[in-house]
C-alpha cells in the first residue's frame, strides 16, 4: 500500500502548454489530424455493438435475470428485454468522427477561454506505456463541467486511445449534447440506483466487460460528483469495486490506476457553486442553459492544469492484502457479496487515489491569497497581503505542494494579475484589498438584510472554494496543531488521541485513508518539525517559540470548520427538535445561522454552506450522536443531545476524548 502514500511516486515533471501549438495551426487541420493510437496489447477497440452483445450474453446477467424473473414471477424474456433497455440507455457509442467534431469545437472554446492548458508530458508518456500493458483506469478529480471532455481532448491530441467515461444521467437529458457525449465515449449512470438489482447487474457487467477486454481506458470520477466546494470529496466505492473486480478474479493480470489532477486558476461556474451552497437551486442541466452560458465563455479564466499521475499497479497494491483464491470455490460469474477484506481494500484504494489526486494538484497563487483574505474579513493592506502570501508560499512548498508561481515576475505582479483575474471577488482601493459583495440580482441595491447577508456570504464561499483547493496541504499539520492546543499535556500519545478524535469528526470534511491515522499523525508532526514549528523528543511534542506564527496560521485555517461545527452542535442541542426529517434539516440550520448573523453572533459566514452543514450531520451519524430511521420513503433523524454536547465539549478542549470510542480510524 506504500505506493498509495505520498512521496513514493515520482514528481509530475515539467508542464507544457498544449494550446501553444493549437494556436499556430487551424482548428480544422487539428480536427482532421491523423490519429492512430497504440491500444492495449494491440487489441483494436471493440464496437459498441459487440460490447452490448457480450454483456447480454454474459453468464452473470443470465443468472441475475433468471433470479429476478423467479422473484417477480415475470417471464425471463421480459426481464432480459428490460436489461437490454437499461444497457441501451447506458451504452457509449464512441465514434472517431464525433471526437473530431468535438476536437474542433473544444479547440476553439479552449483557446478563447484559457490562456494556457498545461499538461505534464512525462505523465502522458507513462500513460502511453501503461495503456499498452494493462487495462487502464483514468481517475480524474471533478471540479468543473469543463473537465468532462478535457481528457478526451488531450488524449486525442497526444494520439492516445480515447476513454469511455462514466457520466451522470442528467447530462444525457440534455438534447443533442447527450447524444454528442455518448458518441464521444460517455456512458450514463443513473444518480440513484438504490436497490435496483437489475440496474446494478447491467452496470457492473458493462464496466467489468470493458475492463476485462481492455477495449478502452475507463474514466470515472471516484469522488462520485463534481465537488461544489473544490475540496476533494470522500470517494464512492461502487464504481471502484467494479473496475477492480476483474483483477480480484484473475480475469486480467493487472490494472493500472492513473490519478489525474485537474485544477483551474478560475472556474467557469464559480458563482454558480456558491449559490448552490447557499441554497439557490442548481439550474437543470439543459442545452439552453449551456447556450446562455456562452456569455461566460467570453471571459478570461487563466490557466488550467492537468497532471497525469504515476500509474498505480493494482497487483502491487493487493500484494499481501488480497487473497485472490477466495474466488476459487464459487463460479466467478455468480454474484457474490464482496468479503470484508475486499471491501476494506477497495475503500483504501479509492481514498488513496483521491490523496494522489490531491498531491499532484497544481495550485495557483490565488488559492493562497484567498486563504489570507478569508482570515482578514475586514480587508488588509496590499503589502501585508503580498508579504503573507509569499510567506505562505514558502510553507506550502515545504509541505511538498506544487504551485504555479510564475518565475521571473515580481510578487507584486503575481498579486495584481491574480486579483485582476478574480476581480469579481476582490477589490483594491488605495493600498487596501478586500472582498467584494456579490452583485444583487437585477443590479439594484437590495433592501432586505437577509439578502445582504447572502450577497456577502456568496463571495466568502466563492473565495473559500479557492482556499479549499489548498487545504489538503495543510490539513494534517493543522489537525496536529489544533490537537496540541486542545490537549493539556504535551505527551505525544495524548495529542494523538485528540488528533484521532478530530480526524474522526472531520472525516467527511477532508479525505483520510481509513486505517492510516497513525501515519497521518506522523506526517503532520513531521511537517511541523520540518517548518520548525515543533520539536519532538522522548514522546513529547513541544511547540517552538519562533514557529508560533506557523502554528497559529495552521490553526486559523481550520477555524471556520471548528466554528461551523460548534454552531450546528449548538443548534442541535438547543434549538432543534428531537426528531426531524432530512428535508427539514438544511433550511432549519440555515435560518438559525441567518438569525445569528443578523444578531452579529455568527462567527463565520462559512457556516452558511450547506455542504459543511451536511457534513456535520453525517459526522454525528457516524459517531452515533444522531440516529437515522426510515419512515416511509423519508429519513428521520433522532438527536442525542447529551452525546452532541459531549462531542462539542471535546472539540472545544473542555473534556478529553476517550480513545476507545473512536476506534474506526
Amino acid at each position, binding site marked *: 500500500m506504500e505506493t498509495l502514500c505520498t512521496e513514493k511516486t515520482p514528481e509530475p515533471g515539467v508542464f507544457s502548454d498544449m494550446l501553444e501549438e493549437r494556436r499556430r495551426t487551424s482548428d480544422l487541420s487539428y480536427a482532421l489530424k491523423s490519429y492512430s493510437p497504440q491500444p492495449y496489447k494491440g487489441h483494436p477497440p471493440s464496437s459498441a455493438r459487440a460490447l452490448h452483445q457480450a454483456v447480454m450474453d454474459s453468464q452473470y446477467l443470465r443468472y441475475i435475470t433468471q433470479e429476478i424473473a423467479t422473484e417477480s414471477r415475470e417471464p425471463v424474456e421480459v426481464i432480459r428485454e428490460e436489461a437490454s433497455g437499461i444497457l441501451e440507455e447506458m451504452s457509449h457509442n464512441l465514434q472517431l468522427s464525433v471526437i473530431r467534431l468535438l476536437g474542433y469545437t473544444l479547440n476553439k472554446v479552449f483557446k478563447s477561454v484559457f490562456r494556457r492548458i498545461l499538461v505534464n508530458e512525462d505523465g502522458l508518456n507513462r500513460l502511453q506505456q501503461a495503456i499498452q500493458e494493462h487495462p487502464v483506469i483514468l481517475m480524474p478529480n471533478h471540479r468543473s463541467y469543463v473537465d468532462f471532455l478535457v481528457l478526451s481532448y488531450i488524449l486525442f491530441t497526444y494520439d492516445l486511445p480515447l476513454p469511455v467515461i462514466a457520466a451522470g444521467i442528467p447530462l444525457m437529458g440534455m438534447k443533442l449534447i447527450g447524444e454528442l457525449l455518448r458518441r464521444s465515449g460517455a456512458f450514463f449512470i443513473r444518480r440513484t440506483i438504490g436497490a435496483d438489482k437489475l440496474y446494478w447487474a447491467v452496470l457492473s457487467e458493462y464496466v467489468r466487460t470493458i475492463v476485462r477486454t481492455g477495449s478502452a481506458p475507463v474514466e470515472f470520477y471516484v469522488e462520485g460528483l463534481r465537488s461544489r466546494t473544490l475540496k476533494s470529496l470522500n470517494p464512492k466505492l461502487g464504481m471502484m469495486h467494479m473496475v477492480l473486480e476483474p483483477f480480484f*478474479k*484473475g*480475469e486480467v*493480470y493487472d490494472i493500472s490506476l492513473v490519478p489525474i489532477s485537474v485544477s483551474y486558476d478560475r472556474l467557469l461556474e464559480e458563482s454558480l457553486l456558491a449559490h448552490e451552497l447557499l441554497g439557490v437551486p442548481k439550474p437543470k442541466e439543459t442545452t439552453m442553459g449551456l447556450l446562455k452560458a456562452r456569455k461566460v465563455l467570453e471571459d478570461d479564466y487563466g490557466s488550467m492544469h492537468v497532471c497525469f499521475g504515476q500509474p498505480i499497479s493494482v497487483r502491487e497494491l493487493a500484494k499481501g492484502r488480497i*487473497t*485472490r*483464491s477466495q*474466488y*476459487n470455490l464459487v*463460479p*466467478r*460469474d455468480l454474484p457474490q457479496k464482496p468479503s470484508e477484506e475486499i471491501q476494506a481494500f477497495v475503500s483504501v484504494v479509492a481514498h488513496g487515489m483521491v490523496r494522489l489526486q490531491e498531491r499532484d494538484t497544481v495550485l495557483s497563487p490565488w488559492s493562497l491569497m484567498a486563504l489570507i483574505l478569508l482570515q482578514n474579513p475586514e480587508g488588509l493592506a496590499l503589502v501585508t497581503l503580498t508579504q503573507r502570501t509569499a510567506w505562505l508560499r514558502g510553507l506550502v512548498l515545504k509541505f511538498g505542494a506544487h504551485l504555479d508561481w510564475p518565475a521571473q515576475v515580481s510578487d507584486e505582479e503575481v498579486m495584481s494579475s491574480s486579483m485582476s483575474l478574480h476581480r469579481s471577488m476582490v477589490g483594491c482601493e488605495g493600498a487596501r484589498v478586500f472582498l467584494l459583495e456579490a452583485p444583487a440580482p437585477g443590479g439594484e441595491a437590495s433592501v432586505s438584510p437577509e439578502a445582504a447577508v447572502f450577497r456577502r456570504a456568496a463571495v466568502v464561499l466563492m473565495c473559500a472554494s479557492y482556499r479549499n483547493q489548498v487545504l489538503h496541504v495543510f490539513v494534517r499539520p493543522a489537525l496536529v496543531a489544533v490537537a496540541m492546543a486542545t490537549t493539556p499535556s504535551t505527551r505525544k500519545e495524548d495529542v494523538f488521541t485528540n488528533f484521532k478524535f478530530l480526524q474522526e469528526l472531520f472525516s467527511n470534511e477532508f479525505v483520510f485513508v481509513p486505517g492510516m491515522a497513525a501515519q497521518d499523525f506522523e506526517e503532520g508532526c513531521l511537517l511541523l518539525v520540518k517548518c520548525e514549528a515543533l520539536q519532538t523528543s522522548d514522546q513529547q511534542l513541544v511547540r517552538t517559540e519562533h514557529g508560533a506564527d506557523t502554528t497559529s496560521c495552521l490553526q486559523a485555517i481550520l477555524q471556520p470548520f471548528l466554528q461551523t461545527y460548534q454552531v450546528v452542535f449548538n443548534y442541535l442541542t438547543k434549538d432543534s427538535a428531537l426528531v426531524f426529517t432530512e428535508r427539514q434539516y438544511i433550511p432549519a440550520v440555515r435560518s438559525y445561522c441567518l438569525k445569528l448573523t443578523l444578531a452579529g453572533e455568527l462567527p463565520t459566514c462559512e457556516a452558511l454552506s450547506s455542504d459543511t452543514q451536511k457534513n456535520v450531520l453525517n459526522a454525528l451519524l457516524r459517531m452515533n450522536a444522531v440516529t437515522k430511521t426510515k419512515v416511509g420513503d423519508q429519513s428521520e433523524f433522532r438527536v442525542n443531545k447529551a452525546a452532541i454536547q459531549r462531542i462539542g465539549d471535546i472539540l472545544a478542549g473542555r473534556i478529553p476524548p476517550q480513545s476507545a470510542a473512536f476506534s474506526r480510524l
Partner: protein
Amino acid sequence: MASNGKSSERQRIAQQRLRIIAGHLRKQEEADHIEIAAQECKAESSRTDTAKPNSVPKRRQEIMKWNGWGYSDSKFLFNKKGQAEFTGKRYRLSGLILPSLKEWFEGTFGANLQHKSPAAAALNAGAVPPPNLSESFVEELKATDIPFSHDAEDRVFRSHGHCLHEIFGLREGQYGRCPDMVVWPNCHIDVVKIVELACKHNVCLMPYGGGTSVSSALECPPEETRSIVSLDTSQMNQILWIDEKNLTAHVEAGIIGQDLERLLNESGYCTGHEPDSMEFSSLGGWVATRASGMKKNIYGNIEDLVVHIKMVTPRGVIEKSCQGPRMSTGPDVHHFILGSEGTLGVVTEVTMKIRPVPEYQKYGSVVFPNFQQGVACLREVAKQRCAPASIRLMDNEQFQFGHALKPQVSSMFTSFLDGLKKFYITKFKGFDPQQLCVATLLFEGDREKVLQHEKQVYDIAAKFGGLAAGEDNGQRGYMLTFVIAYLRDLGMDYYVMGESFETSVPWDRVLDLCRNVKERIVRECKEKGVQFPPLSTCRVTQTYDSGACVYFYFAFNYRGLSDPLNVYLQVEHAAREEILANGGSLSHHHGVGKLRKEWMQDAVSSVGLGMLKSVKEYVDPDNIFGNRNLL
C-alpha cells in the same frame, strides 16, 4: 489360458505390431504413412532383444547420464558448424541436423554459442560424503542374499530426481546428502525382509523407482541422522501373470513403462498408460504419485487402471481380498496408497487393467488463429466427450519452439510444400504467425472408428476457426515431449536454465490462468534481474469434463546473475503462487514431494492434512519411510 485359436490370433496381431514398430524404427523409408505408432517418438532401447525383459541395469551409470536426462548416448549439441544435432540411434531425431534450432535458441534466450557453461566432466566419487552405515542392518542384510551397494556412484544416482536445482547442482559437482546404501530386492518377499530389518535397526528407507521425480521427492532430508537406504525396485520387473478373461495383468512394481508396454504388446495387449516419462518411470512410482498418462482419455489415469495393489509397510502388508471392479467398503484404501509418495511403504505388486493393442493409430493437428479459440475448441470437445486418445494445445511460443526442432528437409519439394502451407495459413486465412497455435491429436482404435472420430473432431475444430494441419505437425508435437528434457541439458551448456510444471484448473479459468502465470514469470524474471525476457509458454495437455491440465515451460538466460539458482527458485515459487491464486491445483500429476509441501495444508485444509498424518502415524510410527514427502 485361452484356446489355441485365440492364442494364435493374438500371436498374429503381436507379430504384425512388431513388424510395424520395426518398420518405423528403420526410419520409415517408404513405410505406410498412415500407420504411425506413438512409440515412434520415444526411444526403443532393446527392441530386438525381446528375451531380455529389463532395460534398466542395477548399475544405471552403464547406460544413463549421471548429471542430465536419459541415455548417455543421446544428447543435443551444437556441432562445429554451429548446427544443432541429436546424437545416438535411439530416437527418430537421432543423428539428424536441426537447422533452425540455433537461431531459435539464440533469438529466444539472447544466448550465444560462444558463451558456454559446461558441466563438471565426471562424477567425482571422492567428493561424495562417506556412507553412514548401520552395521547391524548390513550384517543381517548380508544373510538374506539381497544385493546391495554403498558405492559412491550408485548412491549419487539415487540421491536426486530431475528438478532443475538437482541437476544444476550435479553439473556443478555438488552432491548434497546421498543415501548411504542401495538395495535391490528381487521380489515382494525381499521387500518384506528389508522393511522388517529396517524397522528392527531403525534405518530410514527411501523407495526408488525410475528416478524421474520432479518434486524433490528423492532428495534425502538433510536433517535425517539415521542411515538412509535407497530401496531400488528396478529389479522387480516381471509380469507375473496375464488374465485374458478379465483383461488384467499382475506386474511387479519396479517395471518401467517402456518394458511393461513392450512385454504386453508381445501378448497383443497394452495398458495404454503412457506418461511422458514412460521411458524411465516405474509402475510403483506411478502409483505413489498418482501419475497420469498421455492417453488417459481412452485408458484412464493410474487410479482408474489399478485393480489391486500390494504394499509393504512397517505395520505389514496391505492389500484387498478380491479383485472386484468396484467396492463399497468404506473409503477406498487404495487411495491411501495412491499418491503416498513413498511415505507409507513400498508398492511391490500391482494388478492393472489391460486392453488389446489398438488396430490403428493416427496423428493429427489443427491450427487455430489464437490460443483462445484453441481452448474453446478443446472445451467443446470435452463437452461432447469425444476427446481422442490425446489432444493437446500448444500456445504460440511452443508452436514456434516445435518448428525450431524440424529436421533438415530432404527435398526441395517438401520445403516448397511447407512454404505453401505457411502461405495458405498466414496470408490466405489471415492467421497472425505471432498468435496462431496448434492442437496435436492422437487417435486410436478400429480404423473405421478412428476415421469417423477424426472427422467429428475436425468438424468441431472448424467451428472454432481451426484448420487441419497434417499428421507431421502432430507427431512432432509429441516428439517434443520426449526430447524436451534432453534439450534442457543443452540449454544448461549455454547459460540457459529451465523447468516445467503443471496444474489442473476448471475450464472457465484456463485462459486466465495461462495468461497470468506466463506473465507473472516474465515479470518476476525481469524484477530479479534476468537480462533477457524468458521463454514462458504453456500448453493444455489433458481435458476432463470439468477442467483441464495445463503444463508450463519456462527458461531463461542466467548469464550475469550472481545466484541464478535462487532466482529460478523464486520465480518458480511465484509461478506456483500465481497458479493457486487463479484457482489452479497444487499438482495434477507431478505430486507434492518436498518442493510443494508448504502449500499442502492450504490445498487440503488442516483437517485433511491431519487425516493423512494420522494414517502415517498408524502405518509408520517410527518414520522408517522417512523421505518426508507430502506431509
